[in-house]
């Protein structure tokens, strides 16, 4: 436990020094609030584009606040996922390539402590960025559109956060398989996309899939209640995350060399 805390503190410090604690939340906030703003100013944007014949009247139905938040979740699902994977593609590979990992593993540190510190630290950065962005977007949505209850907002955020829980576990695991950062990011993104794609293509067989999390979160916003399938999806996502984290620890133990 003590080693975990020491390593975790080091990860947090590294996140602060590298600027990740600044740029990731800002970029996510920009992505988040762009959604209600573009929804709200859509008529003006189209007009500015200027391709409309003189006198044309644009009729775009105003979306509800819930729909705007669902749109935001969709942005997180695509650009957000890509950004998250890219932001943590080299958390292991960099230390492995430079050989700095040797300075950690020459001391009495276990593979689990090392991996857990990476996992929890990255999860912290990503979840806090996500929450900051989502809450700010909710605030904007309340001003520009109709009011969405904060309980629904938080519930949908909680469910969607599980996708991040899963994403971090997958990316860390891929990070123990490959050495190059690009490869790690590529394989992780492809894997996560395939899961999402299969979930939409084969809904019957993929009820357990973490790819359903976004739909479940949207459902909470629209229906105002916790769907019956949400429990299954949440539990299976947690189980899969534990599995991937376990595999990551196992693969890490099998590294033959912690040095260069």
């Amino acid at each position, binding site marked *: 436990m003590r080693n975990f805390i020491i390593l975790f503190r080091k990860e947090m410090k590294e996140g602060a020094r590298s600027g990740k604690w600044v740029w990731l939340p800002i970029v996510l906030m*920009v992505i988040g609030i762009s959604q209600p703003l573009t929804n709200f*100013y859509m008529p003006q944007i189209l007009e500015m584009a200027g391709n409309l014949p003189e006198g044309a009247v644009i009729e775009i139905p105003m979306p509800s606040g819930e729909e705007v938040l669902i749109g935001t979740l969709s942005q997180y699902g695509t650009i957000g996922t890509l950004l998250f994977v890219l932001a943590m593609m080299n958390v292991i590979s960099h230390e492995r390539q430079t050989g700095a990992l040797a300075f950690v593993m020459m001391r009495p540190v276990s593979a689990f402590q090392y991996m857990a510190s990476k996992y929890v630290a990255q999860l912290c950065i990503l979840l806090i960025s996500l929450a900051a962005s989502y809450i700010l977007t909710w605030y904007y949505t309340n001003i520009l559109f109709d009011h969405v209850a904060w309980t629904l907002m938080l519930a949908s955020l909680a469910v969607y956060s599980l996708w991040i829980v899963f994403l971090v576990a997958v990316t860390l695991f891929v990070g123990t398989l490959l050495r190059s950062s690009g490869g790690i990011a590529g394989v992780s993104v492809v894997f996560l996309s395939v899961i999402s794609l299969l979930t939409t293509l084969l809904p019957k067989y993929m009820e357990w899939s973490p790819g359903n999390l976004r739909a479940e979160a949207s459902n909470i916003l629209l229906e105002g209640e916790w769907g019956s399938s949400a429990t299954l999806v949440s539990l299976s996502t947690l189980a899969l995350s534990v599995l991937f984290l376990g595999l990551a620890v196992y693969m890490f133990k099998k590294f033959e060399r912690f040095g260069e």
Partner: protein
Amino acid sequence: MGVLTEVNWALIAPLIVLQLILMVFALVNCVKQEETNGPKWMWILIIIFVNIVGPVLYFLMGRKNG
């Protein structure tokens, strides 16, 4: 340009401010960096002229030792 007057700048301002903070933060980090992947002036141009994506690219790939 009647469109612009219809826009509530109080709502847009935070978005612009966030982007400015990101750009300045990336610029300061880049200038302080001893060595970047590729010429530094190129990264400075990317950070300034490519909105949002420029600073992100810089933070992801611009630095030699993260």
